[in-house]
């Protein structure tokens, strides 16, 4: 069941990814508000993008496991070019490093964050937007981050 606390409704349409045997569990994970990442059942490494074989130990047992949904901004940019007709710029593109494993990076958008607050290392947490049958994992600043109160009043010119 969809968790309203983590589901974001956006005023535009994202391009829905194809749901395949390899990726469906990732792209639909947000239905219950939790992010799931592929994990090797032998050496316990997380793999993203998900693959059916672990590139470290070559084990063939890979399963999707829930993660905390917490991480930090690895890097960010305010994109101003319209790459997808249905998705009007500007919006924030980022890579987020998940808390579970160093180097476990996801491409995403950071939302609900004025550009002045964005920085490498900013603590963020996952939320989701619907695109077709998929739940697209997005990230926003962790509410109890020290800067949150100060930034709440700032007007952001970035939608996302």
């Amino acid at each position, binding site marked *: 069941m969809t968790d309203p606390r983590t589901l974001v409704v956006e005023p535009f349409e994202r391009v829905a990814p194809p749901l395949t045997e390899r*990726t469906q569990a990732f792209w639909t994970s947000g239905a219950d508000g939790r992010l799931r990442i592929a994990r090797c059942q032998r050496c316990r490494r997380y793999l993203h993008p998900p693959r059916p074989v672990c590139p470290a130990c070559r084990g063939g047992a890979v399963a999707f496991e829930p993660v905390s949904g917490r991480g930090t901004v690895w890097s960010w*940019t305010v994109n*101003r*070019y319209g*790459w997808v007709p249905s998705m009007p710029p500007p919006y924030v*593109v980022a890579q987020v490093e998940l808390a579970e494993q160093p180097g476990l990076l996801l491409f*995403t958008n950071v939302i609900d964050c004025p550009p002045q607050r964005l920085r490498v290392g900013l603590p963020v947490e996952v939320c989701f937007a619907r695109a077709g049958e998929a739940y697209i994992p997005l990230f926003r600043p962790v509410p109890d981050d020290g800067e949150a109160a100060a930034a709440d009043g700032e007007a952001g010119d970035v939608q996302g």
Partner: protein
Amino acid sequence: MSRAESAAVITGVGRSRVGRRLGADPWVLTAEAALAAIADAGLSPDDVDGVSTYPGAFWSTPGITGAGVDDVRALLGLRTRWHCGGGELAGQLGAMVNAVLAVAGGLATHVLCFRTVWESTAQQAYGGRAATLLDGGGSGGRPVRFGRELAQWTTPFGIGYPCHAALDMRRRMELAGATREQFAQVALVARRYAAANDAAVYREPLTMEQYLDARLISDPVCVYDCDVPVDGSVAFVVSRAGHAPDPARAVTFEAIGSASGFDEAAAMMWDRTDLKPADVDVAQLYDGFTVYALRWLEALGFCGAHEATDFVDGGTRIGPDGELPMNTGGGQLSGGRLHGFGGLLEACLQLRGEAGAHQLPDVPRVAVVTSGAEAFTSALLLSR
């Protein structure tokens, strides 16, 4: 161990018209470059028995590829004993690596190696860069970028190629103190070289103020951090050593780095030669975005990790009188996106002392050329 590098030389170089919105048939551009390269080698098309290209006729958005192996074989009436065209190579110049292997392995004697683009005309016809990535020719079409498995990890987030460069640049700015003024030097120095190169696309002066005020694509990437889509073709003839009609003009392969990754390709190249970074007289480094040239400077050992912005600061080191003249024809930023083939052409002309008005005063003896970025890379060390 026999080395493939010792068994092959570049005997001919050729270039078609290169420009913005030429509206020319890409097969005609291909023929211009190919016939020029074959003639430059002192050969006839009947001598060519191999063809190598990137990415060939199949994998394509409009403008990315102008001709494939079969197209050229039919176009020029070539009779080949070996050919290869494809997308999954060691960078765009992986087509040269393949040609070297073909002549070293004895499957061919003279390989025509080419790359043709018509992105500028395509983008005009379809209505912009993003439109060339859409289904149905861009008229209200949907992105078709899921053709490759990897695209699903970026398209739902509206991520374009410049965003990747921007993420790299932003991290350098926050963690290593890099500045936009430092990134700008890659573009500004390239433009100064281009001013003296009548084959470059953009030759008017570019100032720091213009760079800093330029339209942002994906902060901090501005238009001047991005190379320029053009129409054009570049071709080479790779010949088996000992079969060069004019050996004195041949350019020699010192070392090949075909490994995947900036660092890996560079390390492999240095591992195959006794030459060191200090021996390099001129560098033609892939500059699809300014930061890619910086990544190559670091990978090749001209400076340490995250030090390339300091290396290019002020523009002196990479200028014509500097310790490492870089992208001396204007690079792709001012010369046009000929996808690594333009850099290789410039390296050959400089090594032969035939670069004309923008020839370096001391004719270089050793050049390094790189193509591609991230996992799609190659590095070539050349000499004459």
